[in-house]
């Protein structure tokens, strides 16, 4: 079931995707598919130890193997780097960051840390040679547990002398002391600890890279399966000392990212450096087992959250203490991930300025963490939504009723939150009401009365989750206040060609989101042309030199709006040409349906096609006006956008086996105006299942020595079709008032909302047995243990 308001025009149509034919026929080329004659293949030798001193690396035997052209240790390449691997988000001035090179020098710090590499004429020859590299390691004690890491019992990186990277606080100066008072005065309070297990993003396309140097002049093209070609270009130039204008980065078809390709990786830098050094193209394709170890992980937090409430259950204060697991090193935005959640620990609820957040992040001997679909925001939403259920139990009201009492009233928008950020628009009651209707919330509660009786072995549970997604990263000044190393703008160029076909150049970098389709729809609506007449150019820094890429559900609300604004500029220029031709005042011209008309004189009109040709020939343009129809916009959003919604999950739990069956899943999401509801629903479906997978299936498991136990897809449980339910989607539409399209974002909403909805449903089903919490992932074994523990071991 899909519920959408009526829309007219191109925007809002369920238009099929233009990307699909190439992807459906095998015509699309991912990085590993590119034919590159003469390329050398890179293979990386990875540390089998979580922490070990590298005593010596003997590459001589490997170097003499068939097909091998060169072998390098970390020390061999130490001089190749103009600087260490970049971290763009030094969240505090005193943040500690260990030096991190593409290949470890002196000490390896997680299983998978690159130690040496081979270049060979084939991928198999390169991999074979890895076995012949003789590395002598001195194994050192590894640190896996976050609180153990915090104690500095064992310090991982001698150079920084502590495992603590930073402590970042969000305290509201004007209300200092009020938080303690609110807890002292609270009618009800809850204090909970939640563990955000480590997750492996597992985009279906493993990472792949190819660096192709030009024979003369020093130019280089770097192909990579990346979400961030523009950021990668800047960072590669800085790290390798290549003049930025001599570097071109291309992201061909990219097979999913979910944040894991929002990074600058060792293999990208190695390919570029070795291509530069050898003069030959160098390529690399990750194996899945390598990816599980050496592509970033997500989540990895210990969350302590306390809520204070008045006698009606209305929130009066929230206090949060986090420990963030950085892994062995800081990758591109590793330290900033917990901060993105810091603003969301009051969810969609009214809270006075009585909020106290502090996060301390630590190094461990595990794969570095970084942004994974939602990045900080799913964690925050999980904590507040789980804690709200605890508070509801404490107060003795239904969880949905408690939420309704706390919703920010629609009339309060725009709403200045406790953090100082302003939420743009919302109607939480409407979304919750629609979700409750769709799932028959009252009916489920009635069924529970008869089904969840003493002795029942199949117990019914319903979980509610409401959310805000702080997305559309981001106003550059806000990023500055968070010490982020770049801005949050997006660039667009709209170019009307002589034959009235339109080229759009965008700085966004799609990897499954359907930007070519959606952006063509925006231009079609704005310019009065068919979407088929619009070409969307992207993900190649030679074609789209300016951009900040795709992550944080930013592409539409920043990049799409930039395109709309560039269209406006083109129309303004075209209007001058049309007015000149029609001998009218530009102010008297109206533009709609691809035609300029003189107001009040419908016979005096000129189509955009004619204007485009006039602009091209330049035979008769107004004095001083430049030929051609083209405009560029760089848009820095004035605010984040704030999609919201309510998700509800219905489960049945078998108390004898601990097995959870998801019976129904209802997602009501409000992302403002929808450009293409087909794509919106697809984003919700995928996001919901990814969040549900955290709740039920997925965890990157390490043993006490720091060995990753889930290093393949046979061990790491990405769910299959048979493991997950259908999703029933509904939508409310509350346009954002901060941009001309009225749009928000939808890429991460499903992931943010679904994890707590699923766990809340399981705990709801088992609450009659005394279960208050179930850790994630809620495997049958884990659920059974929770029941058994609640029953005093009598299960």
């Amino acid at each position, binding site marked *: 079931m899909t519920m959408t308001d009526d829309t007219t025009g191109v925007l809002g149509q369920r238009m*099929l*995707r233009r*990307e*699909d*034919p*190439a*992807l*459906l*026929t*095998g*015509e*699309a*080329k*991912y990085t*590993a*598919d590119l*034919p590159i004659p003469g390329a050398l293949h890179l293979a990386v030798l990875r540390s089998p130890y979580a922490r070990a001193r590298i005593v010596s690396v003997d590459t001589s035997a490997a170097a003499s193997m068939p097909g091998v052209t060169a072998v390098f240790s970390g020390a061999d390449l130490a001089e190749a780097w103009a600087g260490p691997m970049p971290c763009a988000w030094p969240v505090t001035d005193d943040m500690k960051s260990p030096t991190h090179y593409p290949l470890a020098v002196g000490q390896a710090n997680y299983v998978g840390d690159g130690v040496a590499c081979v270049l060979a004429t084939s991928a*198999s020859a390169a991999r074979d040679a890895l076995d012949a590299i003789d590395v002598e390691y001195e194994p050192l004690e590894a640190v896996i547990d976050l609180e153990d890491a915090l104690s500095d019992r064992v310090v991982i990186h001698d150079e920084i002398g502590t495992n603590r990277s930073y402590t970042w606080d969000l305290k509201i100066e004007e209300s200092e002391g009020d938080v303690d008072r609110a807890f002292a005065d609270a009618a009800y309070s809850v204090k909970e600890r939640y563990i955000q297990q480590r997750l492996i993003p*597992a*985009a*279906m*396309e*493993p990472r792949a890279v190819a660096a192709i140097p030009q024979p003369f002049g020093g130019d280089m093209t770097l192909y990579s399966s990346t979400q961030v070609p523009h950021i990668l270009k800047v960072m590669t130039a800085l790290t390798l000392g290549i003049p930025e204008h001599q570097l071109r980065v291309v992201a061909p*078809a*990219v*097979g*999913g990212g*979910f944040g894991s390709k929002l990074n600058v990786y060792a293999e990208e830098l190695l390919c570029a450096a070795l291509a530069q050094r050898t003069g030959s193209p160098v390529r690399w*394709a990750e*194996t*899945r*087992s390598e990816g599980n170890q050496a592509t970033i992980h997500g989540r990895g937090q210990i969350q302590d959250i306390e809520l204070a409430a008045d006698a009606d259950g209305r929130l009066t204060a929230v206090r949060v203490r986090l420990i963030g697991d950085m892994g062995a090193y800081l990758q591109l935005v590793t330290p900033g991930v917990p901060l993105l959640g810091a603003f969301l620990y009051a969810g969609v609820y009214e809270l006075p300025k009585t909020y106290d957040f502090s996060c301390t992040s630590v190094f461990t001997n595990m794969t570095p963490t970084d942004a994974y679909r939602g990045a900080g925001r799913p964690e925050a939403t999980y904590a507040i939504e789980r804690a709200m259920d605890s508070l509801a139990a404490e107060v003795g009201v239904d969880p949905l009723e408690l939420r309704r009492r706390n919703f920010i009233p629609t009339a309060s928008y725009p709403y200045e939150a406790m953090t100082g950020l302003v939420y743009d628009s919302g109607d939480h009651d409407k979304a919750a009401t629609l979700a409750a209707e769709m799932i028959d919330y009252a009916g489920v509660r009635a069924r529970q009365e008869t089904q969840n009786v003493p002795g029942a072995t199949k117990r019914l549970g319903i979980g509610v989750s409401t959310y805000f997604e702080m997305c559309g990263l981001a106003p550059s000044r806000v990023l500055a206040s968070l010490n982020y190393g770049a801005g949050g703008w997006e660039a667009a160029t709209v170019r009307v060609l002589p034959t009235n076909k339109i080229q759009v150049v965008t700085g966004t970098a799609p*990897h*499954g*989101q*359907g930007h070519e389709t959606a952006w063509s729809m925006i231009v079609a609506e704005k310019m009065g042309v068919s979407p088929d007449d619009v070409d969307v150019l992207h993900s190649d820094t030679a074609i789209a030199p300016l951009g900040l890429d795709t992550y944080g559900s930013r592409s539409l609300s920043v990049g799409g709006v930039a395109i709309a604004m560039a269209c406006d500029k083109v129309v303004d220029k075209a209007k001058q040409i049309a007015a000149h031709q029609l001998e009218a005042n530009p102010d008297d011209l109206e533009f709609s349906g691809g035609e300029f008309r003189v107001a009040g004189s419908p016979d005096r009109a000129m189509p955009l096609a004619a204007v485009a040709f006039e602009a091209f020939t330049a035979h008769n343009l107004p004095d001083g006006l430049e030929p051609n129809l083209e405009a560029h916009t760089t848009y820095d959003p004035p605010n984040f956008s704030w999609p919201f919604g309510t998700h509800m999950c219905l489960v049945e739990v078998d108390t004898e086996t601990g097995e959870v069956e998801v019976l129904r899943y209802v997602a009501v999401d409000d992302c403002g105006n929808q450009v293409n509801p*087909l*794509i919106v*629903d*697809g984003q919700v*479906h*995928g*996001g*919901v*299942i*990814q969040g549900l997978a955290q709740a039920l299936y997925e965890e990157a498991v390490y043993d006490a020595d720091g060995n990753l136990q889930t290093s*393949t*897809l*046979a061990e790491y449980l*990405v769910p*299959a*079709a*048979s*493991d*997950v339910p*259908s*999703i029933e989607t509904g939508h409310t539409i509350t346009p954002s008032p901060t941009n001309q399209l009225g749009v928000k974002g939808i890429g991460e909403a*499903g992931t943010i909302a679904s994890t707590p909805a699923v766990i809340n449903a399981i705990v709801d089903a088992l609450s009659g047995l005394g279960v208050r919490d179930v850790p994630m992932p809620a495997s049958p074994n884990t659920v059974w243990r929770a029941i058994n523990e609640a029953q005093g071991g009598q299960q």
Partner: protein
Amino acid sequence: MDITVTINGKTHTADVEPRTLLVQFIREQAGLTGTNIGCDTSSCGACSVHIDGEAAKSCTLLAVQADGCSITTIEGMAGDDGSLHPMQQAFMENHGLQCGYCTPGMVMAATSLLAENPNPTEEEVRLGLEGNLCRCTGYHNIVQSVLACAKS
């Protein structure tokens, strides 16, 4: 070892290393890169092709085991006139793909599923596709695509 494999109606004869996987043969010898590699444990199904008419993961076979076989890859599914195969068309119309990486394998597995069971229930589709992983769609629209194709 010399092998001869027919792929999408075209005969490919090559001298391959015994350890060469069929998926490597398809991608590197035949140059058909629509068949993707998503894992190294035969878990993901991105490399699914039809071998003598039945879906199989081409990473689970050595190329030499396919000697004499007839293989269809995603490149062989559309008509000679460029028209999409009904399953490809159903995936397009039902938004059954996003990044597209699992899609070739998913289409091959789904067509094989319908060949065996032309009118599956939703549950049968979900079980029938359990060897193929997708990270983007949450499977909802993939299942809808297969059901729609069965209906048409």
